[in-house]
């Protein structure tokens, strides 16, 4: 469960979030929607622990948070598989990485480097990394940007399945994506 009360965040002297409150359950998908610059990404960054709010409270029972940033943010000097395995530890890191990369349809590109991937493929690697990390809260910032329509459907299904046992908070501009995920829509 996550409960945010009256969050206020100012960035560069400009208020980005003002008295924003939010609630989500332990499982299920929540879609954050709203105009660009309204604070959706900022809210995700607060939840990821990357920004400290100026005021307000967050109560959370989640202990492990996975993030898929708006940009892929891959290590250029690691292969696709190494990028995913990097967030894991233990002997099974490689096999878990392979499993999730296969789930996002990249099983034939395990040994490629990020510069050899298209924008959509890089986004899928970043998604696989976030899923492989296995956070009980998964934060997705526009996960389908640069992903073509044909590839999007299985990815939506993958996130839908993940949301059946975890909490997923997704930033999107597409109402259709939110509906396909069966997400609760929160308008900022």
């Amino acid at each position, binding site marked *: 469960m996550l409960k945010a009360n009256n969050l206020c965040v100012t960035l560069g002297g400009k208020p980005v979030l003002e008295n924003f409150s939010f609630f989500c359950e332990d499982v299920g998908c929540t879609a954050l929607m709203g105009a660009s610059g309204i604070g959706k990404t900022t809210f995700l960054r607060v939840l990821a622990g*990357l920004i400290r709010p100026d005021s307000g409270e967050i109560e959370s029972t989640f202990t492990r948070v996975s993030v898929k*940033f708006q940009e892929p*943010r891959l*290590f250029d*000097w*690691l292969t696709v598989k190494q990028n995913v395995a*990097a967030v894991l530890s233990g002997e099974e890191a490689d096999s878990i990485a392979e499993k999730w990369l296969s789930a996002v349809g990249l099983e034939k590109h395990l040994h490629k480097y990020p510069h050899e991937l298209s924008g959509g493929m890089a986004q899928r690697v970043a998604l696989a990394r976030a899923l492989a*990390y296995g956070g009980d809260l998964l934060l997705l910032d526009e996960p389908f940007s640069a992903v073509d329509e044909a590839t999007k459907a299985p990815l939506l299904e993958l996130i839908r399945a993940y949301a059946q046992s975890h909490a997923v908070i997704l930033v999107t501009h597409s109402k259709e994506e939110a509906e396909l995920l069966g997400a609760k829509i929160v308008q900022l």
Partner: protein
Amino acid sequence: MKKTLKSLGGTLLVLAFWLALWWLGAIRMGRELLLPSPLTVLERLLELALTADFWLIVLRSILRVVCGILLALISGVLLALLTSNIPFLRRLFYPLLSVIKATPVASFVILALLWLGSSALPVFISMLIVLPVVWAAVSDGIDAFDKDLTEVCRVFSFPFGKRLRLLYLPTVTPYFLSACKTSIGMAWKAGVAAEILAVSPVSIGKQLYEAKIYLETPDLFAWTLVVVLLSLIIEKLVTLSFRALGKREIRRATYAQGE
């Protein structure tokens, strides 16, 4: 293989051109005292190389300069780590870095000769030449850490060892290597210059100094050639050892930034 041979052929051709030019200059001048021919220099170098003293002198000079370089690498990295992470130290040490960079080597040589004596002087001078280059380069490398990837490390709770291996080393290594490459030649030149000025015992610098005193121009050329060769060999060894030691990601980062 064919490409390597072609490249080697090209290098030999360039070398032959400059040797020929040197030879022609020596013939034209006609005085070994002013410009000895390449053959005379080579003969003198071989004569020297057949004596045990030559190798002892070379070894002692190598030890001095390498000690200076190693001290500079260690202190340069430590200073960069401290000054990049503690703003107060950055402000405190910045004038020192600027002073070291701007002060003529000769000033340091004269002062250090009084403080340290002739044997330790080349070590100190070599260190002083390499230190600011490594310090500045590693600081630049630390400043170049990708903020986005730093956030990735944070959200996925990478332990320090993993951050070091996956982010810090791949980012800093190309800067560090480039600093090594630039400064090793400089360290040799400054170290030998310090040996000359201090007339350090059992040193290449002392041999150059004596060659000057006794107008032994072939000796001067032969010992200079030794300094050039040693500088090239050590530079190559540093690059090769980093490649051998470096993880694949370090090599890739080095390659990517060199492209």
